[in-house]
């Protein structure tokens, strides 16, 4: 309808029309797994060379791989799974992409239209199951709709607040001839029109507040990364123009260079002391592309109590959802930053230099607490501190084209704290959903997109087992992904919460009978390395980087180490625990706090 602009041309099969539409949408790789309902698509893939197919070992991994591909390239990731279990296995990945606003199109086989609703073999109500798991989904019931739906799906996935879109494709639609039309140059949707241009009046209000701020802070999130590398460049330009302190969310790491003195580090539950206290004490807060997530705000009624809040977001539903703001700017982060920079330069008001200097002096006091500190014993045979392992990994990879993915848990937080990102799209982690098993398949997708880059999955020994089968995919496609396991033999984050909140009763958080990760790597045609003490660490890291094959580096780390600093559940930003020595003097966790996750 509104998505195409040429006269239709009849293709031999729906599958052929589908592939042609994918090519027109710039798809060069699909992550997928075959099955009965999608055989016609696999047959069409077999007969062409433009689109590469990466055969994963589990459909969840196909979606995470497409996420890694999308997040490291800025393009829409593409997934292909079969009906029934293929679709249900993909659901975790779809929700992950939905929570983190990752653009994906998931093509899914379905039983033929005449069998839908008959409980046919490998039938599932896929559009029903994935309705709340996607930004939008489609069931194609007529061949004439197929190509229009594909073009529309890509438009919906990549525009506005990006997200996953699923297309359910009955087998008869894939077999029957289908008309093909090129996508329109300027596609216009009937009902879907996301607002991307910010309202200039709101921009002016924001700049007026910022110019007069005495204790400002910029808080930037994944929306800036999603808006493309230029948005991150403009964020850096704007922040330097203002001289204001800036903090990034977990999703926003890399949007502002970590080495810049204006950078306060990550904020939130395991953010730095200076970032969280700046948020608590500021008088003007500028939120760019972040959503006041509960990991960031801590206790809501104590969140940044004395500030005027400006919130710029592409999604109007994110504004005033949990935190009431004073100025709401709806728009794309790139357009918003352009407008902010122009308005800042145009407004001749001088910032209050003396007040800002006082604010920075206060921040420096907080910084001097050095809240990410840890002590690595250096005696021979000393056990490795996990933070030290990340720091050494970071030092060893500086100056290289490095991409980091993670699983979920303590290792993820240590990676976020101790690995420093200078550029966007280099850091892929499951933020919103917190999906264990994300990192290995995501790294696979990154490596497919960047064959010559160094791609490292910083993992825990529990998370990695959730998608370990993808070692097979790494071997098949010679993807030299490095898996850097911080092995403490515990589900560390679960254990940490049990220690702090449940009287150190470590219920089910210790992994008995872990595999020998060295042998495991070898059995999957990779290389396994192990560091048992601090003496081995640098050598293992250097070897891992040098080997042009998939590598598992099993780093045996201190089992008892916890992630600090920490805002306990239900506590406020100014009630942080800085380390184990403060564990007993922090705020008592209330029953309300206990109920939070």
């Amino acid at each position, binding site marked *: 309808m509104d998505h195409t602009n040429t006269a239709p041309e009849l293709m031999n099969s729906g599958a052929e029309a589908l592939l042609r539409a994918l090519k027109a949408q710039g798809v060069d790789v699909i992550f997928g797994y075959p099955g009965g309902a999608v055989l016609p698509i696999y047959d069409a893939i077999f007969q062409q060379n433009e689109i590469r197919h990466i055969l994963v070992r589990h459909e969840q991994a196909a979606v995470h791989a497409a996420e890694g591909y999308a997040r490291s390239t800025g393009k829409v990731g593409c997934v292909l799974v079969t009906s029934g279990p293929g679709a249900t296995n993909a659901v975790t990945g779809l929700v992950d992409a939905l929570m983190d606003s990752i653009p994906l199109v998931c093509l899914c086989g379905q039983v033929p239209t005449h069998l839908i609703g008959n409980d046919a073999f490998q039938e599932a109500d896929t*559009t*029903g199951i994935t*309705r*709340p798991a996607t*930004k*939008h*989904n489609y*069931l194609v*019931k007529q061949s004439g709709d197929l190509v229009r739906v594909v073009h529309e799906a890509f438009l*919906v996935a990549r525009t*506005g*607040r990006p997200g996953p879109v699923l297309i359910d494709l009955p087998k008869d639609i894939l077999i029957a001839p289908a008309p093909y039309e090129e996508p329109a140059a300027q596609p216009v*949707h*009937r*009902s*879907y029109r*996301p607002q991307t241009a910010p309202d200039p009046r709101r921009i002016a209000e924001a700049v007026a507040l910022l110019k007069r701020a005495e204790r400002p802070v910029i808080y930037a999130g994944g929306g800036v990364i999603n808006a493309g590398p230029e948005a991150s460049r403009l964020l850096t330009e704007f922040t330097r123009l203002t001289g204001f302190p800036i903090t990034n969310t977990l999703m926003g790491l890399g949007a502002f260079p970590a080495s810049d003195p204006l950078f306060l580090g990550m904020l939130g539950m395991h953010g730095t002391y200076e970032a969280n206290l700046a948020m608590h004490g500021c008088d003007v807060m500028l939120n760019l592309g972040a959503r006041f997530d509960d990991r960031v705000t801590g206790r809501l009624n104590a969140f940044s109590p004395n500030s005027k809040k400006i919130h710029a977001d592409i*999604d*109007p*539903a994110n*504004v*005033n*959802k949990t935190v*009431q703001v004073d100025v709401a700017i709806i728009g794309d982060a790139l357009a918003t930053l352009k407008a902010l920079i122009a308005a800042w330069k145009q407004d001749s008001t001088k910032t209050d230099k003396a007040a800002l200097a006082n604010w920075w002096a206060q921040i420096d006091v907080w910084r001097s607490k050095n809240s990410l500190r840890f002590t690595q014993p250096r005696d021979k045979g000393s056990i490795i501190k996990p933070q030290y392992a990340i720091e050494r990994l970071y030092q060893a990879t500086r100056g290289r084209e490095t991409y980091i993915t993670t699983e979920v848990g303590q290792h993820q937080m240590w990676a976020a704290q101790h690995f420093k990102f200078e550029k966007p799209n280099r850091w892929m982690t499951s933020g919103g959903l917190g999906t264990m098993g994300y990192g290995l398949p995501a790294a696979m997708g990154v490596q497919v997109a960047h064959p010559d880059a160094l791609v490292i999955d910083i993992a825990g020994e529990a998370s990695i087992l959730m998608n370990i089968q993808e070692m097979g995919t790494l071997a098949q496609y010679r993807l030299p992904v490095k898996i850097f396991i911080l092995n403490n033999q515990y589900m560390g984050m679960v254990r940490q919460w049990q220690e702090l909140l449940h009287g150190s009763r470590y219920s089910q958080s210790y992994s008995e009978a872990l595999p020998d990760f060295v042998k495991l790597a070898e059995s999957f045609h990779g290389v396994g390395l192990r560091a048992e003490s601090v003496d081995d660490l640098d050598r293992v890291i250097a070897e891992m980087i040098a080997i042009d094959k998939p590598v598992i580096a099993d780093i045996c780390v201190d089992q008892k180490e916890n992630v600090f600093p920490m805002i306990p559940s239900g506590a406020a930003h100014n009630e942080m625990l800085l380390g184990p020595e403060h564990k007993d003097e922090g705020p008592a966790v209330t029953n309300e706090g206990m109920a939070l996750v």
Partner: protein
Amino acid sequence: MSETNLRSATISVLVENESGVLARVIGLFSGRGYNIDNLTVAPVERDGSKSRITVVTRGTAMVIEQIKAQLDRLVPVYKVLDLSEGPHLARELALIKVLGTGEKRAEALRLADAFRARVIDATTESFTFELTGATDKLDAFLELMRPLGLAEVSRTGVAAIARGTTTIS
């Protein structure tokens, strides 16, 4: 949130008339824990391409704003209009079956007349009334029918529209 801060809102949503669109709207309410007090849906365009969903919901001002924003971001949604922000008309239709004989039956008919309910079916032991009006009028009539042999009710839910020249499109 205290109950006293809750307000009722009548929200009209103009949607693409495609398969699953009602499930999207209802799923949004159940998935995010919003209330649905009342819901109607029917095609409103001559070609059947658009439907109008009217939802009566309750929540704090912040939640009502969230509901509208969440509805508006659904792909097949053209327009979301909060009718309760201004003067509007809301009507509902009910079919009401009352069983009884003698004085009770006669009293039911007298009250129906007072409420301008129409008799659309009758036997010697029953009346079926058709009544149109605002929700509270229907509620009041049903309350009166209860002791008089109220046996069954079918209600359409609320159709609503803004007063004056304001339109949804």
